[in-house]
């Protein structure tokens, strides 16, 4: 009895099949459903909001140029995402362990984040040029803040009784960080991953749009100047799909990593 009783997740097989069907069918239903609603509701001509059919046909038949430019964007997004995490978590650690650095770093961090992107792009383009690094820096600047803020909260959420245990045992701050604070922060850090991870493609695209001649951002730039709304939205759709996959991967990783999930009651 004790198994069944404590396992609230037991599902009937019918429910399972439905769940799988939902997982496969719901995303397209969701995306195209809302798209058609927008088209119908806004009443704009199709050179402004192209119809899903035209966009899909671009993705299927004219994808060469898009796919060619997918790789640099993915690279920039992945590197920027990584760096945003490194910087964000490092800052969180610094700021929580040396409180006065909080007041010293935070205003600069917020200012950096508030330099208008166009001004930032100008500076980066001149200082570094149209390179991977420029894009990665823009992504870092756009992404480190949510990671930092959430990690700080996470670090502060550690159960005080466990910290007492660490103090009694005179455990090094380093180990406490890696083995206690970081795992305790995971629910917060994983939330930041969902936020930053699923946005990194579209930020990479925005960065490319401003300062690069490769990548999906450039494709959009070119497509807009050619009045190829269908191509613009094809890129947007592709970006959304990738972001959704990233989001699902992060959710999967959360479920694996996140101890909170294991103590969580299912309803």
């Amino acid at each position: 009895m004790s198994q069944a009783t404590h396992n609230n997740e037991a599902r009937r097989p019918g429910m399972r099949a439905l769940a799988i069907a939902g997982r496969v069918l719901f995303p397209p239903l969701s995306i195209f459903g809302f798209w058609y609603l927008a088209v119908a509701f806004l009443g704009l001509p199709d050179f402004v909001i192209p119809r899903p059919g035209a966009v899909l046909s671009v993705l299927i038949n004219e994808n060469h140029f898009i796919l060619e430019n997918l790789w640099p964007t993915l690279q920039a997004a992945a590197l920027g995402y990584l760096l945003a995490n490194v910087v964000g978590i490092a800052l969180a650690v610094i700021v929580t362990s040396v409180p006065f650095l909080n007041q010293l770093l935070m205003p600069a961090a917020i200012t950096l984040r508030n330099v208008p992107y166009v001004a930032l792009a100008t500076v980066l383009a001149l200082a570094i040029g149209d390179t991977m690094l420029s894009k990665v820096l823009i992504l870092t600047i756009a992404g480190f803040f949510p990671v930092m803020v959430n990690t700080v909260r996470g670090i502060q959420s550690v159960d005080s009784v466990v910290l007492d245990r660490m103090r009694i045992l005179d455990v090094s701050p380093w180990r406490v960080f890696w083995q206690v604070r970081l795992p305790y922060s995971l629910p917060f850090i994983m939330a930041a991953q969902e936020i930053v991870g699923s946005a990194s493609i579209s930020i990479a695209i925005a960065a490319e749009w401003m300062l690069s001649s490769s990548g999906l951002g450039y494709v959009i730039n070119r497509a807009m100047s050619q009045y190829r709304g269908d191509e613009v939205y094809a890129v947007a759709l592709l970006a959304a799909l990738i972001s959704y996959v990233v989001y699902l991967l992060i959710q999967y990783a959360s479920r694996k990593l996140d101890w909170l999930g294991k103590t969580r009651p299912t309803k």
Partner: protein
Amino acid sequence: MSETDLSIGAGQFVALVGPSGCGKTTLLRLTADLDQPSTGQVAIGDMPPSAARKQRRLGLVSQRPAVLPWKRAIDDVRFTQVCTGKSGLSAEDLLRDFGLAQHEKKLPHHLSGGMLQRVNFASAIAHDPDVLLMDEPFSALDEMKREELGLWLGKVLAERPKTVLFVTHHVDEAVLLADRVLVFSASPGRIVADIPVTTPRPRTAAFRTHPEFVELTNQVRGLLFGKQEAHA
């Protein structure tokens, strides 16, 4: 809690009894160098608590379990050893002795209240500390387990003498195990009596019928509950 000086001799077993909320946990935290006393002084052997802590000689069984929610029982016990770099007592042996052999792979939220308390106990002493601070370590256990663990502790202390501060609500247990029983009063929380138990340790369950036991338990109950008649 008003000014308190507490000094515990090396190798002594000191029990702390007193009504709920009188400051037992607070005193234990001072002894553990988790809080600083505003007045008064605490000494373990001839060391201040901070020195003992820095030498990793402390072990604390906290009133609320201090296990890590993502660690299986056995890993939590081993974590203490990894952190202190002291292998101390074998983690498997500890859990087996505590009746948790079948449950060593369980996560904390899959353990019952009493099991969790035993894991917490095992984790707190796994590095075999010289100074053992315990805050109602057996409160969630049935009488049999409580007795078993008390005897187990007596045996360990006989083999490896330790300085012990033991908070409990069980007067019998206090007298049975300790060299000295400190009795706290309710507000203002302060030590109203410091009662030595002269019969040498380790004692067996037979000590319960010894005149000193009966006398001392009555004396402590009298101090705690006033004129009222003592009861089991």
